């Protein structure tokens, strides 16, 4: 997309029909929980949108978030929207590297001061700056420098949003989330491991349409996408209510598509749009493929017990401590009985 083109012109050059574009706008408005009357506004604003500058920083991450976006159901309107941003810096995708690339980033930041969107994937190590550097610049320094003049930050993936896998116990690098460092800029957490591509484009579409950040939940995530938990929207929910559960991955219950709660599904405590937007062009989502939800869009999901441990399981240590409590109970009971016997003897004597 050329810099002088608006999004509408660009999409037409890519063969996207007006009907296809409006369909996308309707779906996006619906996903963002906007009323039907907002579709025209979304379409008008998106068609006229100029390329916003986006600087994408990748820190302690696995590139899964970028893979999720770039290898998603291309070439749909969503991916074209993604193409339509001016991605001025993304060290995984760009050809340039080293000081030249860093100079381009600094130039883009200077040129779009106060207007560019900073996308971050990956957590930031605080224990030692050398754990993760780009062109000799520590993640912490680069984040602070790039965040200084941005309009807003989009923390893509659970690592950037909440610390994710690098922050899991014992957190060897002292990994933290973007929001632990930057406190003076609006931050949109698009969590997930990886996040759903359409949620990213939905956030961008919202920004392009309204020039603002969407309504967020208490964890800083777009409420339109993270407002409901997987369990409430799961098509297997009726099996849960009927008490029909798969006991193993290959039993009759699993084959019949029964609820995966007993296999450790974290759907009830996971807020994401998987069950509604689904993945791979709306093909399915993990539960539909027969695997329990891991709860990947929630803070600390790596440390919430085993993935295959049912949600209602308590966290008890070894039985030895309970046995210790029992022994203590016997001792206390013996003392109480001895005291009671003394009182009994006294009353008997007096009586």
């Amino acid at each position, binding site marked *: 997309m050329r810099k002088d083109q608006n999004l509408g012109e660009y999409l037409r050059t890519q063969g996207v029909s007006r009907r296809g574009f409006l369909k996308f706008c309707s779906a996006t408005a619906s996903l963002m929980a906007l009323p039907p009357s907002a579709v025209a506004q979304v379409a008008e604003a998106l068609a006229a949108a100029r390329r916003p500058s986006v600087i994408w920083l990748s820190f302690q991450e696995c590139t899964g978030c970028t893979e999720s976006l770039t290898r998603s159901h291309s070439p749909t309107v969503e991916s074209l929207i993604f193409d339509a941003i001016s991605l001025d810096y993304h060290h995984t995708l760009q050809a340039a590297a080293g000081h030249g690339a860093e100079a381009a980033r600094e130039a883009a930041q200077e040129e779009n001061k106060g207007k560019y969107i900073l996308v971050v994937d990956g957590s930031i190590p605080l224990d030692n700056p050398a754990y993760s550097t780009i062109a000799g610049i520590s993640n912490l320094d680069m984040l602070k420098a790039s965040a200084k003049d941005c309009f807003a930050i989009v923390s893509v993936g659970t690592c950037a949003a909440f610390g994710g896998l690098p922050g899991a116990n014992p957190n060897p690098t002292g990994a933290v989330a973007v929001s632990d460092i930057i406190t003076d800029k609006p931050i949109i957490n698009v969590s997930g491991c990886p996040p759903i591509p359409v949620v990213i484009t939905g956030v961008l579409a919202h920004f392009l349409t309204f020039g603002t950040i969407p309504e967020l939940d208490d964890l800083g995530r777009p409420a339109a996408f993270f407002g409901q*938990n997987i*369990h409430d929207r799961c098509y297997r929910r009726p099996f*849960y*209510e*009927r*008490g029909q*559960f798969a006991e193993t991955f290959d039993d009759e219950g699993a084959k019949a598509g029964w609820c995966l*709660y*007993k296999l450790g599904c974290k759907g*009830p*405590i996971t*807020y994401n749009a998987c069950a509604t937007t689904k993945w791979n062009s709306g093909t399915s989502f993990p539960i539909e493929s027969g695997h329990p939800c891991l709860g990947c869009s929630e*803070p*600390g999901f790596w440390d*919430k017990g085993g993935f295959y441990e*049912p*949600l*209602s*399981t*308590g*966290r*008890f*240590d070894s*039985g030895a*401590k*309970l046995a*210790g*409590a*029992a022994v*203590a*109970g*016997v001792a*206390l*009971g*013996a003392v*109480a*009985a*001895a005291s*009671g*016997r003394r009182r*009994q*003897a006294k009353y*008997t004597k007096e009586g």
Partner: protein
Amino acid sequence: MDLLDFARGPALQWAAYILVAGTIWRIVGIVLLKEKPDFSEPRARGGLGAALKVIYTRSFTADPFKPATMYPKMLAYVMHLGLFAVVLLFVPHIMFFEGFLGFSWPGLPNNAIYVLGVAAVASGIALLVRRVTSPVLKLISNFDDYFSWLMTMLPMLTGLIMPLRFGVRYETLLAIHILSVAALMIWLPFGKLGHTFLVFITRGTTGMVFERRGAKT
């Protein structure tokens, strides 16, 4: 550590320690007491058979008392059976027990549990209303009665509102539910809820003593 992790972890763990230690303390403290001397001539042996007989017969109201006690007795049965079903036959609860017992048993569909749970709570409320409206019951009730009622009802109520949500997040409700269970576990050995584990011991003892004295049981 978030609230749910705290509830599932340390809160439940300490509640379990206190429940086990407290329960054994109460039982051992009673069992080891010196038997009261009975100077009367024994009319019968007063053995285990007598104990089992009273454990059974006291589960039902004696004919002369039926008109007066049928209503609270029925409510108490509904409440106790509902409680039993909710605690032991709700599948997520069975999985909780399986977590430390190592075995499981069949459960009931959730909707059946909801019905039984609502019946149990309704019966509990009706029993409380009876307690506060009856002058005699009111006179003999103390803090223990009301607090034990609250400790029993809270896990039921917090469990029942989980499917309804009322705009509160599931994990928050689950954490509150588990914390209410932990509170119940902590209180259970020390108040009148101790009847959970003492009921059959006391009934059996009564049966043995009564038979020994020649009372009809």
